[in-house]
């Protein structure tokens, strides 16, 4: 690849120029001379690995944190926002994941929340009209009931309220911080529609994300950050490839399969943990998977899919309503975490500061906290673990004289996480559960965490990793169980997957309901099998299926990823024809209709397999499918 030169500044003055921004939290240098320039009417991608400083830079610009050094020029004039309110006054708004909405107020009140602080009487009639105008301008007039309490809204709707709120303030720069982390593909498309309209209005948008395919779909140019510095500034997205971006973000080529082992045949390995139809309302509905000795299994899906809650149920932090957990073949229902710990299970929760670290304890006592609960005596029994502690410290690259440091909070996020993982490794667990193990961990430490997990698995532990970072799952895990809306919907081998397919599987069932209905109708009318599949050169990935017994059975179920040759309809799958294709022998005939969203995003194929010689009209079916998908998006 040839590094494209930074865009030469031609005509209009930039909207915002940030130069040489420094910011230090405690001892962590989050930003070291970061630069950014934004123009009106562009969607600007701000990229970087976790801990690269993109969120901190966004928060500096939007006034949420104050910079230590550096200059920000807004429309050519120096800007020094002391807080978010001043930045909003200037026209800069940030839309975060943890929304700043008041859950007990209505949508309307939230949109005009800043105006509630103004003196004088509120005129709700006028506000209502303005809210309608704003939503109209976004093309979302019907998406938001103005009188509903925000508490009752979906995450995507809340985001829309935030955007409307920003527009009510007439913001000319809107920063989206990982806006798609909890959205289904359909909701992402709708968000992109809104962003496109905002750009057409001449506003500047910053899109912070690490999902590269989204960056390519929506941004005009990108700025890449690494370790607190800007490494590439305002490069047109069109001149870059995905691997260029990865290299810029990471600073090197990441060998993806570095920490992954080939998946062994399931029968070859000892089953350690079996989960069958686990239900723990409201988040966990029907989860099944098997975890083997020496394996790293991924639990993928969107935020809110019930993955964390599944781990909590296995660890005894959440009471299952029904279903079965078997550990080493025996029924296992931990009522409290200590039961799980003594059975050989360790759990690294997602929120390190809130759920793992005891801030008033020394590093040593934090490390020994799992031991403390497993320990049955009256005393502490710390001494008995001294040797193992020393071994672990060597493995973690932590100097032993820091063991007695009074607070873990002085360490980097990565080191904190290594200590928390070591808390469980100390007990030599048979099963290790980890929830987002590299969240807030710098890129360098990430690989050492992967190495630690791989090492634990090689010693025979069964490791279960929850992550929203599909790249991470694909690089670390042999197999991935995909969860959606509290249900495990597919168990896939990483070898055959990529991020795009994983994203399609992870879409919430609720957003697929229209499609499922279509499949049921088609299957019912024709007496055949209707299904939604993705295809690549070798395999078929079945997202959903309805109907089809006997001759009409296409040979795969929802969540299955067979080779094309192993299905019962290989001829049709290879043909890519616009009509029904009969398999040799004539027992069944298959029609495939290619589907895409109205933004042109490939969504795979809708297939219909019917038995014998019955031939519904292919054109009519294709038309119905296309209409349905246009509506669903």
């Amino acid at each position, binding site marked *: 690849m040839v590094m494209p030169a930074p865009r030469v500044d031609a005509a209009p003055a930039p909207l915002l120029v940030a130069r040489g921004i420094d910011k230090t939290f405690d001892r962590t240098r989050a930003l070291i001379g970061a630069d950014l320039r934004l123009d009106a009417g562009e969607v600007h991608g701000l990229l970087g690995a976790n801990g690269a400083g993109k969120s901190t830079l966004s928060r500096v610009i939007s006034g949420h944190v104050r910079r230590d050094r550096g200059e920000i020029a807004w429309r050519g004039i120096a800007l020094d926002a002391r807080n978010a309110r001043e930045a909003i006054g200037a026209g800069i708004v940030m839309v975060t994941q943890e929304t700043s909405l008041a859950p007990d107020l209505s949508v309307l009140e939230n949109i005009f929340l800043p105006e509630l602080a103004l003196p004088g009487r509120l005129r709700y009639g006028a506000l209502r009209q303005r809210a309608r105008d704003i939503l109209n301008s976004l093309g979302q007039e019907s998406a938001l009931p103005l009188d509903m309490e925000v508490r009752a809204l979906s995450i995507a709707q809340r985001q829309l309220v935030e955007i409307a709120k920003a527009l009510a303030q007439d913001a000319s720069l809107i920063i989206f911080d990982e806006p798609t982390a909890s959205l289904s593909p359909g909701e992402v498309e709708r968000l992109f529609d809104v962003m496109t309209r905002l750009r057409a209005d001449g506003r500047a948008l910053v899109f912070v994300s690490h999902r590269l395919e989204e960056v390519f779909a929506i941004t005009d140019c990108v700025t890449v950050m690494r370790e607190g510095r800007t490494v590439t500034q305002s490069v047109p997205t069109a001149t870059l490839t995905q691997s260029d971006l990865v290299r810029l973000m990471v600073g090197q080529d990441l060998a993806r399969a570095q920490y992954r082992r080939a998946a062994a045949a399931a029968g070859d390995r000892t089953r350690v943990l079996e989960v069958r139809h686990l239900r723990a309302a409201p988040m966990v509905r029907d989860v099944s998977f098997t975890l083997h000795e020496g394996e790293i299994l991924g639990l993928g899906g969107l935020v809110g899919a019930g993955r964390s809650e599944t781990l909590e149920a296995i660890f005894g*932090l959440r009471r299952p309503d029904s279903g079965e957990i078997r550990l080493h073949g025996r029924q296992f229902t931990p009522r*409290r*975490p*200590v039961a*799980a*710990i003594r059975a050989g299970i360790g*759990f690294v*929760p997602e929120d390190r*500061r*809130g*759920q*793992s*670290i*005891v*801030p*008033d*304890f020394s590093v040593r*006592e934090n490390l020994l*906290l*799992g031991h*403390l*609960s*497993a*320990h049955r*005596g*009256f*005393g*502490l029994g710390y001494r008995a673990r001294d040797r193992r502690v020393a071994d672990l410290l060597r493995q973690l690259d932590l100097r032993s*004289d820091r063991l007695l440091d*009074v*607070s873990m*909070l002085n360490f980097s996020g990565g080191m904190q996480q290594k200590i928390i993982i070591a*808390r469980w490794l100390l007990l030599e667990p048979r099963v290790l559960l980890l929830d987002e193990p590299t969240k807030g961990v710098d890129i360098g430490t990430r690989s050492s965490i992967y190495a630690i997990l791989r090492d634990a698995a090689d010693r025979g532990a069964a490791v279960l990793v929850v992550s929203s970072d599909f790249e991470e799952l694909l690089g670390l895990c042999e197999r991935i169980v995909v969860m959606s809306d509290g249900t495990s919907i597919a168990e896939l081998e990483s070898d055959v997957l990529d991020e795009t397919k994983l994203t399609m599987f992870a879409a919430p069932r609720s957003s697929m309901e229209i499609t499922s209905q279509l499949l049921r109708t088609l299957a019912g009318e024709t007496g055949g099998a209707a299904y939604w599949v993705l295809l690549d050169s070798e395999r078929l990935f079945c997202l959903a299926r309805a109907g089809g017994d006997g001759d009409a059975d296409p040979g795969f179920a929802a969540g299955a990823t067979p080779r094309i040759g192993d299905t019962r309809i290989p001829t049709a799958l290879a043909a890519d024809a616009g009509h029904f294709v009969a398999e040799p022998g004539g027992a069944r005939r298959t029609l495939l209709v290619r589907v895409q969203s109205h933004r042109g995003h490939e969504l795979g194929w809708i297939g219909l397999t019917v038995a014998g010689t019955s031939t519904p009209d292919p054109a009519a079916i294709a038309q119905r499918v296309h209409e349905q998908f246009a509506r669903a998006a």
Partner: protein
Amino acid sequence: MSQATLGPSPAAALIRRLGRRLEVRMLALASVVFVGLSLASPFFLQTNNLLNLLDQSVVTGIVSIGMTFVILTGGIDLSVGSVLGFTAVLMGLTMPHYGIPAGIAVAVVSGGAIGLFSGFLVARFGLASFVVTLGVMAIGRSLAYITSGQNSISDIPPAINNLVYTSILGVPSNVATLLVLYVLSWLYLSFTKGGRTIYAIGSNAEAARTAGLNVLAYSVLPYVISGALSAVAGILLSAQILSIDPLAGTALELDAIAAVVIGGASLYGGRGSIIGTLIGVLIMVMIRNGLNLLGVSPFWQGSAIGGIIIAAVLVERLVSTRVRA
């Protein structure tokens, strides 16, 4: 890699390291008060007065142990004073009929039971300890009046006086009890699973729960200890004055909280030490005693103690480098 020895002398480094320890800072403060009072009043250093100081520390000191346990978990126990009064009345009613040991047992068990009640409500249902123990405080005092018939009980066996004035190695038994209880509590909090769990709960209850510690049991235990120790303090108080007043222990909770806070504990929980509390108790008693010796009006003593509490907390906040969430 060798440790480079740069900068200040080892002695200075030692002082700085000691200075990081809360107890050491508090001990320094206590010494300052001690020396100051010795200089200000010629009577202060007399043996009688020093013994008197320890004697005056017993009731507040024992109650403050329980208060330390509760505050370490992030809670507070406002009921100690009325639990002391109520359990002392129960003891006074029991003793004439069933003897001294039975009276003591009734007091300690009922104190513990009241603590169990408060602790369970706080830990199991997540009620605010301030509110629960405020309610128990009112109930306890009211029951003390009802059971005592609103009168002081003075027909208690005089032999109970031995609990206070038996000499053990030259130390009066009530002071010895105080010291033994402090040593036991210090050992428990520093070197046992339960003690460390209490600290962990106060520092981050969610982390303690997720790490598998028994958060419910060790959140309740401090209240039980606090109730039982309030009863113990009540026993020693009654034994000393050979009379039981249903008003006994009124406003004691304020002294106990003050001692714990002066001793450096954080009201958010997780931070503090039993040694610090002992020093806190001594500082308070010394100041009371010194003000008396100096002839300061008792009405001014409240202002003095109050000022010291606020100053202690302020200094601790300024010295403490960590920022709490």
